């Protein structure tokens, strides 16, 4: 295949827009190189030639001091605009533009924007590519700044055309390492528990990521803790990403456009967490046509609607999901209550709603408003009535458990110049957990006023964030892409509050008290600057500084964190990559790592509790094998300090001062990750293998000695594959293996002086010896999931039947280990036997779902 595409005609809409070229005579000749699907915007040359930086002057000045390479060349012009999906108008993140004239390239940012400044030419050949889309090649004259929006067609829409210059940013070209992009379509194909497609569970299948316990949606990256992942939904942090005690994540895949995971080599724009950044971007909504999709599954149903509000200018998307086990079980529960002489209801459900609207006010301004809310709720309402000789009594129990997140983001994209893109974001994020338990006992005797006693207990905890963020992308020339910005977050922590009401009309008792710890407010702020610099054709660097600070009530912490990524390209396409990054985290999570309890408590750094810090180095090789197989091997070493953990003997269910229940120490992890990924074609998927070690060392835990981290997994292996037999049938399968989690089990039992007895009067009790924390390895975890989709195009919609099985060969994977004691009467005496048991959670679980798309 050559580098040229021969197309005998120009599409009509391209011809219509040729008038916008300032020098139409420079257009490519038909039959040699033709533009395909190009839409040319107005050129707005005046503004672009004399960019008015206004208040950004000082920031610009700083950049010019830092990066002398930014000096302007008057003979250069800028080609800028957006790359989008031709069908829906969705902006494409990470699409690659490559100017073959001069061999320079760039990549679209989170909003699909690109900017490429090149020497003036009459005929600039640009190749635009994006995974899963048809690569486009076209010629443009570059005699002045050009604004050019480029729609790409999905590869499924391809007709028989010869593709030229297939060229997108390959893994070996990126300076940044330890970042994995998983196409959302691929995530949707991964077989899932009960058919609920899940982003976080798909990320668990990547090397370097452990998933915690059986069925859990937790994420443990390179030996890090569950609180060390920055999960951003449209740029807003999500604090608790779990539904149903961690078995599902809160992200509805139908509403998601793009997912990426960064495990190390963090660019300077990221901060606030030690171990990973998971960026999830919601779809913007189809701005050309109204569409919808949905599904009915075993536990939940989903519906997503999207369409234009004003064609080509604004669009919306609304997506919702709800479980209905409670609804289906309601008649049975009602009957059960009635058989016990009462009435009432009990159940559990969760729901989530995503909504997003965007509007393009001008070629330079676009505003996005996105909203997410999700909540889990358990409820029990029970009433028992008794009538005895005209006297009546009524006993009512009401209790509930609820937790959930709300996030809102208002984002304004503004093009200050063809080289300078600005995004202003205002966000609100809230996570809260509340539980209530109450009872009312009302007794009425004949001719007497009723007697009533009330008891209620409510608990509330959570975190609220209000944040503002300003981010800039500056592309002075193709060799530099500079990002800089600043943000501030105002946190309000609710560490836990109890409200108790006790009232008894007979004893004239009325207590209404509020106990707990006061709210804590803190401001977190950060600023960063980073440069992605193509130093030579072989050497590419991404370096920068991240400055952050945190001000709880009594103290201010600040930190300057250098970041560095480098790539050196060898002959033969092999790239050697290295990275160094330091990170700081100011907020901490008190959680039980065994199961995803909603009692997660986010707490701030205080004068007593220090911020967490880490540094990480990584070294790796990367290459695209053949045409489609991305291969990488990475080694890393990470050290963390002031990691938080419960003290020995502490429990989640103690309600004393949280600072007294935690302790801080160090952690370290190192390992190697191997990854081969194929993103396109009939067969797609990946194979990953991780060899790793993860340790913790706390002065107050395990007698100050280092011990293996709970999710220290020596081997972690995963295969994910999807094969599309034809447009109607698709088979997916995953197989995972991981070394068992480390847990603490007594190795022997012995007699010890009873701590409760005084020295004079020894008594003994039997206890177990645990020579080291996490001394026991649970059996290895492995699982095979399989799913098949049957898709059929109906007259007005496309429907898919999905069948599959989670844990297809019914592996009994460990959920937890416990000692079981049993007493049996045998041969005239009681015999007590003890055994070590492993409890598993999920046997083979088949699933099916019906989904549709129109």
């Amino acid at each position, binding site marked *: 295949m050559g580098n040229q595409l021969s197309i005998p005609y120009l599409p009509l809409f391209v011809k219509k827009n040729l008038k916008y070229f300032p020098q139409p005579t420079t257009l490519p000749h038909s039959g040699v190189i033709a533009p395909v699907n190009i839409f040319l915007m107005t050129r707005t040359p005046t503004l672009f030639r004399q960019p008015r930086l206004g208040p950004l002057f000082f920031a610009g000045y700083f950049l010019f001091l830092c990066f002398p390479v930014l000096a302007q060349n008057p003979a250069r012009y800028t080609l800028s605009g957006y790359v989008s999906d031709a069908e829906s108008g969705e902006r494409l993140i990470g699409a690659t533009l490559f100017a073959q004239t001069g061999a320079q390239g760039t990549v679209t940012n989170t909003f699909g924007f690109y900017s490429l400044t090149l020497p003036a030419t009459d005929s600039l050949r640009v190749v635009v590519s994006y995974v899963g889309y048809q690569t486009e090649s076209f010629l443009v004259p570059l005699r002045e700044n050009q604004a050019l929006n480029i729609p790409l067609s999905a590869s499924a829409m391809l007709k028989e055309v010869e593709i030229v210059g297939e060229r997108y940013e390959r893994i070996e070209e990126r300076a940044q390492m330890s970042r994995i992009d998983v196409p959302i379509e691929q995530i949707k194909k991964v077989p899932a528990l009960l058919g609920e497609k899940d982003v976080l569970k798909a990320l668990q299948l990547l090397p370097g990521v452990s998933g915690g316990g059986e069925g859990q949606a937790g994420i443990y990256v390179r030996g890090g803790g569950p609180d060390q992942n920055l999960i951003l939904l449209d740029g807003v942090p999500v604090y608790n990403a779990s539904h149903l005690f961690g078995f599902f994540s809160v992200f509805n895949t139908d509403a998601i456009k793009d997912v990426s995971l960064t495990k190390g080599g963090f660019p300077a724009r990221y901060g606030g967490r030690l171990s990973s950044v998971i960026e999830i971007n919601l779809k913007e909504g189809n701005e050309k046509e109204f569409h919808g999709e949905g599904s009915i599954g075993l536990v939940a149903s989903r519906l997503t609607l999207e369409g234009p509000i004003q064609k080509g200018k604004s669009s919306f998307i609304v997506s919702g999901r709800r479980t209905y086990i409670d609804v289906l079980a309601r008649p049975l529960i009602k009957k059960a209550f009635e058989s016990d002489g009462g009435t009432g209801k009990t159940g559990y459900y969760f729901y989530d709603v995503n909504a997003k609207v965007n509007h393009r006010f001008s070629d330079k301004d676009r505003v996005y408003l996105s909203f997410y809310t999700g909540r889990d709720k358990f409820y029990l309402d029970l009433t028992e009535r008794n009538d005895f000789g005209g006297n009546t009594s009524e006993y009512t129990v009401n209790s509930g458990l609820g937790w959930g997140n709300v996030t809102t983001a208002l984002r304004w994209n503004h093009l200050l110049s063809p080289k300078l893109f600005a995004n202003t974001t205002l966000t609100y994020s809230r996570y809260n957990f509340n539980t209530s338990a109450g009872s009312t006992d009302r007794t009425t005797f004949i001719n007497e006023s009723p007697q009533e006693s009330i008891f209620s207990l409510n608990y509330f905890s959570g975190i609220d964030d209000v944040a503002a963020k300003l981010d800039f992308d500056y592309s002075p020339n193709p060799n530099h892409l500079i990002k800089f910005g600043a943000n501030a977050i105002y946190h309000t922590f609710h560490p836990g509050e109890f409200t108790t009401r006790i009232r008894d009309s007979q004893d004239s008792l009325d207590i209404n008290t509020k106990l707990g710890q006061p709210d804590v407010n803190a401001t977190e702020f950060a600023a960063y600057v980073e440069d992605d610099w193509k130093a030579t054709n072989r050497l590419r660097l991404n370096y920068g500084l991240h400055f952050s600070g945190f001000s709880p009530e009594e103290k201010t912490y600040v930190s300057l964190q250098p970041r560095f990524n480098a790539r050196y390209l060898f002959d033969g396409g092999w790239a050697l990559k290295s990275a160094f990054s330091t990170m700081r985290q100011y907020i901490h999570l008190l959680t039980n790592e065994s199961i995803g309890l909603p009692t997660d408590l986010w707490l701030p750094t205080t004068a007593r509790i220090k911020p967490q810090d880490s540094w990480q180095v990584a070294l790796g090789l990367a290459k695209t094998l053949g045409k489609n197989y991305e291969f990488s091997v990475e080694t890393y070493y990470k050290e963390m300090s002031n990691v938080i*953990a419960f003290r*020995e003997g502490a429990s989640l*269910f103690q309600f004393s001062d949280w600072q007294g229940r935690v302790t801080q120490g160090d952690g370290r992890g190192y390992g190697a990750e191997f990854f081969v990924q194929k993103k396109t074609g009939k067969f797609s998927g990946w194979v990953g293998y991780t060899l790793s070690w993860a340790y913790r060392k706390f002065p107050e835990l395990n007698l100050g000695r280092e011990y293996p981290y709970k999710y220290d997994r020596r081997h972690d292996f995963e295969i994910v594959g999807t094969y599309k037999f034809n447009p109607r049938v698709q088979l997916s399968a995953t197989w995972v293996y991981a070394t068992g989690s480390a847990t603490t089990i007594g190795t022997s*039992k012995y007699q010890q002086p009873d701590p409760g007895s*005084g020295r004079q009067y020894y008594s003994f009790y039997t206890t177990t*010896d645990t020579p080291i924390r996490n001394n026991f390895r649970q059996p290895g975890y492995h699982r095979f999931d399989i799913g098949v989709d049957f898709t059929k195009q109906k007259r007005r919609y496309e429907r898919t039947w999905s069948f599959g099985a989670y844990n297809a060969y*019914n592996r*009994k994977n460990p959920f937890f280990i416990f000692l079981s004691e049993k007493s049996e009467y045998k041969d005239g005496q009681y015999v007590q036997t003890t055994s070590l048991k492993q409890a*598993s959670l999920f046997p083979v679980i088949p699933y099916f779902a019906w989904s549709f798309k129109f």
Partner: protein
Amino acid sequence: MYKLLFLFIIACGLTSCSEDFFDQTIDIDPPAYDKQLVAHALASNLDSVFTLPLTRNFGILEQTPDSGWAVNNALVQIYEDGQLKLVAPPALNGGQWYSVPLPPGFFQSGKSYELRASHPDFTTISARQIMPSPFQIDSAAYRENAGISGDGTKLSAVDVYLKDQAGVKNFYVITVDGLSPELTPYFDQLGNFLGYDTTGFYFNSIYPETAEDPNVRLAAGRAFAVSDQFFDGQAYKLSFRTYYQYGGYSQYRAHVWSVTEDYFLYVVSAQRKYDAGDLPLTEPVTVHHNVEQGLGIFGLGWEEVRDVQ
């Protein structure tokens, strides 16, 4: 048709499963362990007898008869600065206690003492400690009003004012006994009751309540323990706070030890493990041991005693 066939195959597959196919609890092998001797002892300068309970451990799934813990016919020895000084006679009648009388002031400050216990069926265990230095108690007093506990109960305290030695890592443990007089009635020659004589005292080891100083830890043996890292070289008030005894004791006896670091770590961790026993989802506790090739603790402490009214 093929759908029905598919369902039929699935149904056949499930019905042919073994009985425990859906049983989600299975037995697994326990961790391997070494059969070891277990010893626990704290010796002080005031002791007249050295006593060591010597037992053994068992695998967590093994059945253990009550008499199975004791290890008879072991050889228990105490070495001082590498010289054998004492040999405890074998425990008799299946007992686990090894006792040997001590000459007055046997354990001397600054000297190294090693405990060894050997038995043909076990690997010999040993633990070595250096006797801590004497320390100075300035005074001790009883305080009736020492605050209110979390459940609203009145607290009292025995306060011991000590002077810590600078530049040395010291660890203090305090226990308090309540003394009740042992009253013996006396009579005249005709047998008429005249009154009581105090002929001795009953000792009651008092339970500690929450400490006033957050650096003070609850410790095994109804004790409080504290490290001098928070008051190195300074005067320090070591308080033993307890529930106020209505009616009270006639007097209190405070025992204060300057103990070895090993013993300090043991009493604190053993107590923490004991406290955590009943709480759900508690974090595991590792108990400190210093017995090599075995389990348990051999600690030394310089002991001072003060009686307060």
